[in-house]
């Protein structure tokens, strides 16, 4: 194993190549462009710079159907443009990896500053019901490792898997070990080998059935079951116990790196597979009287945690892309007084 100093975005690109990436289509966007820059130098990957993110995601849908392991990378604005086709890929069951290096939104926001505003967009961004697998690592080494996991989960679930990052972790330089991880093989036969019909319409045996509610219920149940089954292989989270504190801080991504500094005073839980939510959180939460979710948005994951635990969850939001331990402490103290 070799040690290397890598940037977060670069680590995703290198790991993707090792995980068998054949095809990449993307559109330049801060702070995700370095992934595109790194991949154009690789001889084993066909790289296309498309006219927009809609074209990017649709091109990799086509490439994946034709048998290539495919990926695209973007940030919030591009991710919004991709949403319709992400739902389409869920419906057609196409393995894809979509990297979203988050920046401050909504809209153009603060392009170079980190945020965690796309949590809901990952899960509910497209119309209809679908059940995405989403990973959100918080270091360069973890980005490298979870790029493999994202590709494997995509192949196993035949669905688009989201690899979340943010402009902080994406632009961070750290020394990592370039390890090799097991790679899941493609199970979907490539186009041009049969007479299947891939459609976004409700379908049964690859034929459209648009007026039978039972067929639709069966299809959505199938998608849900499949995603849950595959996600169980990736129950990734980090739990730092603290017997002297009955408060559990839940945090992830860039912000969690600052929150590590509070481990003397609080227990910390950090999900890496953020969706579907890791069930283990229910058991961990039972050990704590108070739960505070800290995130760089106005409470997107807090709502999901509350929904899972059926109990009140307090919330600290760090907005505007600046991660400041003083601000975190002040906000926590304010909550602690109420506790």
């Amino acid at each position, binding site marked *: 194993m070799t040690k290397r100093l890598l940037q977060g975005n670069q680590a995703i690109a290198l790991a993707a190549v090792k995980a068998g990436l054949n095809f990449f289509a993307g559109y330049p966007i801060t702070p995700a462009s370095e992934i595109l820059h790194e991949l154009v130098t690789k001889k084993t990957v066909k790289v296309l710079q498309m006219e927009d993110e809609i074209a990017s995601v649709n091109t990799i849908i086509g490439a994946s159907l034709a048998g290539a392991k495919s990926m695209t990378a973007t940030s919030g604005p591009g991710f919004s443009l991709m949403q319709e086709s992400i739902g389409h890929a869920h419906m057609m069951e196409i393995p894809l990896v979509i990297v979203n290096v988050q920046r401050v939104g909504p809209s153009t926001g603060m392009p170079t500053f980190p945020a965690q505003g796309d949590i809901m967009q990952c899960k509910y961004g497209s119309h209809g019901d679908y059940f995405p697998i989403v990973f959100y690592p918080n270091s360069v080494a973890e980005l490298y490792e979870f790029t493999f996991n994202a590709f494997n989960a995509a192949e196993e679930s035949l669905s688009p898997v989201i690899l979340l990052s943010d402009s902080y972790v994406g632009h961070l330089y750290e020394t990592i070990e370039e390890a090799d991880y097991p790679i899941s093989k493609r199970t979907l036969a490539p186009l*041009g*080998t049969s007479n299947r019909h891939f459609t976004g319409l409700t379908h049964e045996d690859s034929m459209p059935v648009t007026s039978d509610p039972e067929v639709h219920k069966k299809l959505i149940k199938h998608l849900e079951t499949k995603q849950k089954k595959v996600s169980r292989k990736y129950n990734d989270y980090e739990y730092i116990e603290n017997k002297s504190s009955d408060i559990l801080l839940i945090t992830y991504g860039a912000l969690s790196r600052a929150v590590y500094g509070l481990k003397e005073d609080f227990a910390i839980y950090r999900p890496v597979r953020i969706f579907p939510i890791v069930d283990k959180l229910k058991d961990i939460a039972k050990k704590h009287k108070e739960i505070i979710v800290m995130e760089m948005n106005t409470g997107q994951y807090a709502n999901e945690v509350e929904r899972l635990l059926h109990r009140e969850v307090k919330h600290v939001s760090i907005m505007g892309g600046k991660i400041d331990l003083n601000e975190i402490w002040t906000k926590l103290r304010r909550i602690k007084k109420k506790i």
Partner: protein
Amino acid sequence: MTKELTYLNYLKQERLPHQWCPGCGNGIILKLSCLAMEKLNFPKKGTVMVSGIGCSGRSAGFFDLDSVHTAHGRALPVAEGIKLANEELNVMIISGDGDLFGIGGNHLLHASRRNTDITVICISNAIYGMTGGQCSPTTEISSKTLTTPRGNADTPVNVQAIVTAHNCFYARSTTFHFNHAMKCIFEALQHKGFSFVEIKSQCITNDGRRRGFKNSYEMLMSYKDNYKINNSSNKLEHNEIGIIK
């Protein structure tokens, strides 16, 4: 089975009859595509059909090939992805004018620029038929539709100019000129690089009847009267059909 009927080999016969309205041009273009593929001996395995959304978007599902029914307007990037990931495949698109020039217009501009080796057959009926008959990007000036009750005020999109601006193959024909249309598809499929065949087609249900046509036959006859074959020029006039390589 007689020799003339072998085009059925390219169709999923268990799905026939198709669900399009009586008098629709889509069935004609389905048959034309099969005949052109048959003439070229396209292997069923190794050929992929892609379509967008709309009445024409349902075409792909009728072919006895691997086929993809993409999101609205996205047939071009999906087809490009397929072709570039496996260059041995024959990749064809059948889609409508609303899909290819309206919601997917940007992709047409860039797919022709990239000159990817795919063939696009556009069923150009100048109307959004599936949604009830709204004005489309190819609707003629002053034509009355559901959304232009006082007549369309905008110029129809100049597809010829877009496609030929990047020196790609462009052909125009109509559903009346059956043999000519087949020749267009036949040559487009042989063309290396991006090829685009625009076939003017009739929608009696949601277009023709609002414009005073009694039936589909009258619409076909209007193609006969209005369009002249041009074999020599490298630019087609508004009322001409032909091939520009």
